[in-house]
């Protein structure tokens, strides 16, 4: 019987009822060149979301509603021994700049905000609204 790796080479090696992996190497999760993960849609956006880790409460709302799966999370274990996803950043290769993540962010001062594409991240973080600014509005 053909191995999954052989099955990926030509179509006539595919076995009936086989489950084909979409990875070239399933262990390291290296995706093949035909996976759209290796295609960049970054040039679609005009504004980019910037992530402020100081204000984030790790609610993961942005993860579940991001249409392009470009909220990067990392699995951590809490003090009580429970699994929890911690937000680490944004995948700027696949973000189309729709702004859904900013809209759903629940913190009083949003921990994700849209900035023009050319703004460097350090500059955007420096411009972040403060608590006093919000009270004035």
């Amino acid at each position: 019987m053909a191995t999954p790796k052989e099955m990926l080479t030509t179509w006539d090696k595919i076995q009936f009822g086989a489950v084909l992996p979409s990875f070239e190497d399933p262990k390291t999760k290296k995706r093949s060149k035909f996976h759209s993960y290796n295609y960049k849609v970054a040039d679609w956006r005009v504004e980019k979301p910037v992530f402020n880790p100081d204000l984030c409460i790790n609610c993961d709302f942005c993860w579940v509603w991001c249409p392009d799966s470009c909220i990067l999370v990392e699995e951590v274990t809490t003090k009580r021994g429970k699994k929890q996803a911690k937000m680490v950043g944004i995948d700027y290769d696949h973000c189309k700049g729709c702004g859904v993540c900013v809209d759903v962010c629940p913190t009083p001062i949003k921990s994700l905000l849209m900035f023009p594409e050319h703004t460097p991240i350090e500059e955007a973080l420096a411009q972040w609204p403060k608590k006093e600014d919000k009270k004035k509005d």
Partner: protein
Amino acid sequence: MKKITNLKEFACTPDRFLGGHRLCPGCAHSMIVREVVNATDDDLVVSTATGCLEVCSAIYPYTSWDVSWIHIGFENAAAAISGAEAMHKALKRKGKLYTDRPVKFVAFGGDGGTYDIGFQALSGATERGHDFLYVCLDNEGYMNTGGQRSSSTPIGAHTTTSPRGRVSYGEKQKKKDITMIMAAHGSPYVATACPSYWKDLAVKAQKALETEGPTFINALSPCTTEWKFKPEETVRIGELAVESCAFPLYEIENGTKLRITYRPKKKIPVKEYLGAQGRFSHLFKKGNEWILDLWQKQVDEYWDYLQRREECGV
């Protein structure tokens, strides 16, 4: 069976529908697909009818899926998945399966591929009793080809084949109730869902996948391009649709037992949902007030009907 308790745990799931697809920014299709495919750890076989999801997730030579995926014509997503399921069953009986891991079968179709064109294939597959889940991504029109009307388009909506103008007020017919039609087939599990309520959708998808037999989920998919709202408002539009009871969330078991899964705390007037979208903007002009009243009346009547059914347990 995977346990879905809270979002923090759910977010540890490795994604099986990845970025790099060419759906519009802020499209609800990929939200629904991710919430459905992440709801289970089992292997999946997915078939997709022609539509936005298919043309955007499988542009040659790229694919966005980490699961086995079949592309099939507009009309036969349900037929293809029932064939795959029948083959799997036959190979299992003969002991010729490649793996022993459980495999689930899912079909995705747009509302054109479900309400109109693919309806006979879906009806046939449900009648034959194959074990699959059919998810309808209901964006109320043929949005892939530029926004023509379908039988899912609600009354008063502007589409390119039911345009608004001096004489016309947009779509004349009311939305077909596909969920009740599927329930009338005697399907063991039928539900409506909205991606703005992620847990509701994920739990329903899991329940549908665990149920043996043909199951159906009708998921509302707000379309930023043709419903004419800003891309970042997708989640909020879905919430408005459910909170105003224009798209109530319920499930029906065995075609007889209806249960409302989400009750809005305070029902908001349907005007707020319609006013948020550009395709209904002409209804707020002088002379068209009667359509807004008609909308409200239809929504209230349907909500009352659902509540009566739930109370009686039928």
